[in-house]
């Protein structure tokens, strides 16, 4: 336990330099890029005096190093600063949009695991058959498909041609969402409000975006599961289980798959950052009002503090998930010690 705690503390402390490096890179890149937020904000019609005043107000007239020190000073107090374009704290739009991205990412992850792991296990069981080859082709193809293209394809087929699913947004267009603002997670908020119709509507709206992310990422889980399963199925204990007359399905899925899942847990942490990246494009395709769309919009507006804030949140997320995965790994594999 003491070792685990030490490991935990070390990992948390290591997150700080990671964020620091990311932040410094983003800070410098944003400020050396051409274009500035004041021009974007004032629309190009403002007199020079007004532009200069606004730059001074936002601290943009200071040297980059001074701006950086100011920013770090705020960050130490856990203050992400103020938006340069809108009169709001940086945390405000981030907290507003974050639940949408978490919902989408979680369901995307569930979809990728729900598709990838069973298919991978089945392919291993049916090794060197047509089904195995078919599943492997599927895995390679879907991983190469750009996520936005997958999204458009699903929209067209299931949304427009078949009309089974909605193609945009988190809720139906006629739903007034002002009643569901308690946590920002519409699944929780609608259940809390007791509105089962809207709850169902929210889940229905999640299907296509989550599948978009899930299908594209399932490819890697198919391949990983299959490879791990093939290794595991060669084990002596598997042979022993078969020898004891345990049905093949139980041998594969109960005994084999459980052990094959361990490396998949590790991959989960690595894939999470891909999920977040994929979520940005998925959010654009499905008009999903999450952090990805926020980031794209604020890049366009040169809203430096919000861009930096979003990157920090993404970095924290990836770090947290990686840490969680490591802890989970230790929990499910008694051979792993920290």
């Amino acid at each position: 336990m003491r070792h685990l705690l030490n490991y935990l503390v070390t990992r948390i402390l290591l997150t700080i330099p990671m964020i620091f490096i990311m932040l410094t890179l983003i800070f410098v890149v944003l400020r050396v890029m051409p274009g500035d937020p004041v021009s974007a904000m004032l629309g190009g019609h403002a007199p020079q005096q007004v532009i200069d005043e606004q730059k001074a107000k936002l601290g943009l007239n200071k040297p980059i190093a001074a701006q950086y020190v100011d920013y770090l000073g705020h960050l130490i107090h856990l203050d992400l600063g103020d938006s340069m374009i809108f009169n709001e704290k940086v945390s405000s739009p981030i907290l507003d949009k974050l639940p949408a991205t978490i919902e989408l990412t979680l369901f995307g992850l569930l979809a990728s695991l729900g598709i990838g792991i069973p298919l991978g296990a089945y392919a291993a069981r049916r090794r060197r058959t047509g089904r195995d080859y078919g599943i492997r082709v599927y895995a390679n193809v879907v991983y190469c498909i750009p996520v936005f293209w997958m999204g458009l394809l699903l929209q067209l087929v299931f949304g427009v041609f078949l009309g089974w699913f909605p193609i945009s947004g988190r809720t139906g267009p006629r739903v007034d969402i002002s009643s569901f603002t308690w946590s920002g997670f519409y699944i929780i908020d609608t259940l809390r409000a007791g509105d089962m119709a809207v709850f169902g509507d929210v889940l229905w709206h999640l299907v296509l975006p989550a599948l978009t992310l899930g299908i594209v990422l399932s490819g890697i889980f198919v391949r990983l599961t299959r490879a791990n399963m093939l290794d595991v199925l060669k084990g002596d204990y598997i042979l022993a289980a078969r020898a004891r007359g345990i049905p093949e399905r139980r041998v594969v899925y109960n005994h084999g798959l459980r052990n094959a899942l361990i490396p998949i847990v590790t991959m989960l942490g690595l894939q999470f950052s891909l999920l977040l990246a994929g979520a940005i494009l998925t959010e654009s395709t499905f008009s999903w009002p999450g952090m990805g769309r926020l980031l794209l919009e604020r890049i366009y507006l040169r809203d430096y503090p919000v861009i930096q804030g979003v990157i920090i949140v993404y970095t924290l997320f990836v770090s947290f998930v990686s840490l969680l995965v490591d802890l989970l790994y230790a929990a499910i594999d008694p051979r792993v010690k920290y």
Partner: protein
Amino acid sequence: MKKLSVVVLSVLAAGVLLFVVACGGTKSVTTLVYGTTDKVTKMDPADAYDIHTWEIFQNISAGLLMYTPGTATIVPGLATAYTVNATGDVYTFTLRKGVKFSNGDAFNAQAVKWSIDRVIKLNGDPAALVTQYVKSVDVVDDNTVRFNLKGPVSYFPALVATPTYFPMDPKVYPADKIVQDVNELTGGEIVALGPYRLTSFKRDEQAVFEANPKYWGKEPNIKKIIIRYFADATTMRLALEKGEVDLTFKSMLPSDIKDLSANANLTTYPIPGQQIRYLCFETSQSVFKNKILRQAVAALVNRPEINQKVFLGQNAPLYSMIPAGMSYHTEDFKTVFGDANVAAAEKLLTGLGYSKSKPFKFDLWYTPSHYGDTEVNMAEVLKAELETTPLIKVTLKNAEWATYKKQWDQKQMPVFLLGWYPDYVDPDDYTSPFAQTEGSKGMGIYFSDKAWDDLFLKEQGATDDASRNATFAQIQKMWTDDVPTVPIYQGNLYVFSKKNVTGVNIGATLIFNYSELKFTK
């Protein structure tokens, strides 16, 4: 029963239940859903200067004067009448009695003065619409307010009808700062004087409007309108075809417009455009300081080709900065240059010493996303047109909007593409911002000529139609000589709606009155 079958059946059952529950979602035939890719900027008429945020204010608020829906006819709004003094620089408005803001606060002359003083003080983006013309505002009595102008302005009523002049509740809006979002207001809601109240707003998701029970005018036909914001035109098109939205306005791609116009299940409303696109020249220090070179470029532009290749024929070639359909419009660029007039261009260029071996080289700038996805195509077609003569070599360059604006301020772009939606419906708004000394600076053109400035002052102060007509005729003629800009096309806008939606009544003003919309059975 085997475990797997139980699991599979459970999943299927959950899916069916979910489907049924989802289908039983909130449905209302008295709510209209309107899709757009536009964005709201700032929820403050003292700073909002984009067409969509103005559209919102035009529906939740009102002006002393307003337009009859679908027309450019100015009629009484919050003011029942106005008088103008003999010199045309004092307007006195008589306000409508008994009008209340949507929260019950009384509307009076003090609110009008407070709102105008606020616009002047805060000096936001559209403030020039007030500060350029208004010297002061006086409260004569509770129902009478007087605007003292800096000089006679013949189109002042059109200015008063813009959202920048709309009265806001002094108890709700802060006097000393611009409001970015609704939650900054006292009470967390915009309080105004229009047919609708904005009851809910979530940036990039939706805006919900409900009929204002305290509205002084005609009650809207549809009591609830939800605007649904889309990240891109393709998703919005799919949503319309699927029936998720009842209506869409701004902005579909040309190929989508073509397909949707042919869709028998939808109604198409083409709106003759008052938006224009044009080339701007930096005239003070770039290579285009010489007007002969500007004339040469103007001669080479082929408007019908741009319209056909890039916009599939959906827009209209434009031969003056004043769009067709507006008063005083002429076709001088057609008369003087025509389209793709290579001979004329080559004559001008060879006169300056350019040749095939020594071509005139310059950078043509555009911004790739601000005006929609067609901008790249338009720039490439334009480049090809300009290079029809071997005496010109064009390098295309682009910059994102924020950089683009900075560069035009800093005179870094010798020639660049821009677009314009009208602030107020008057030919002055299509001319003076580009060629009057003060306005021209702000547009990166830096054109300055006293003769031109005098003409603009003359038309701005003229009170009779004949005088303005003559002045604008002269300005447009001079435009083909000095060529501070080259008009290219005038854009049509399109509204698409389900068959059961009527009342789409958007005219030259581009004002979209939601209260006119209705569902037919």
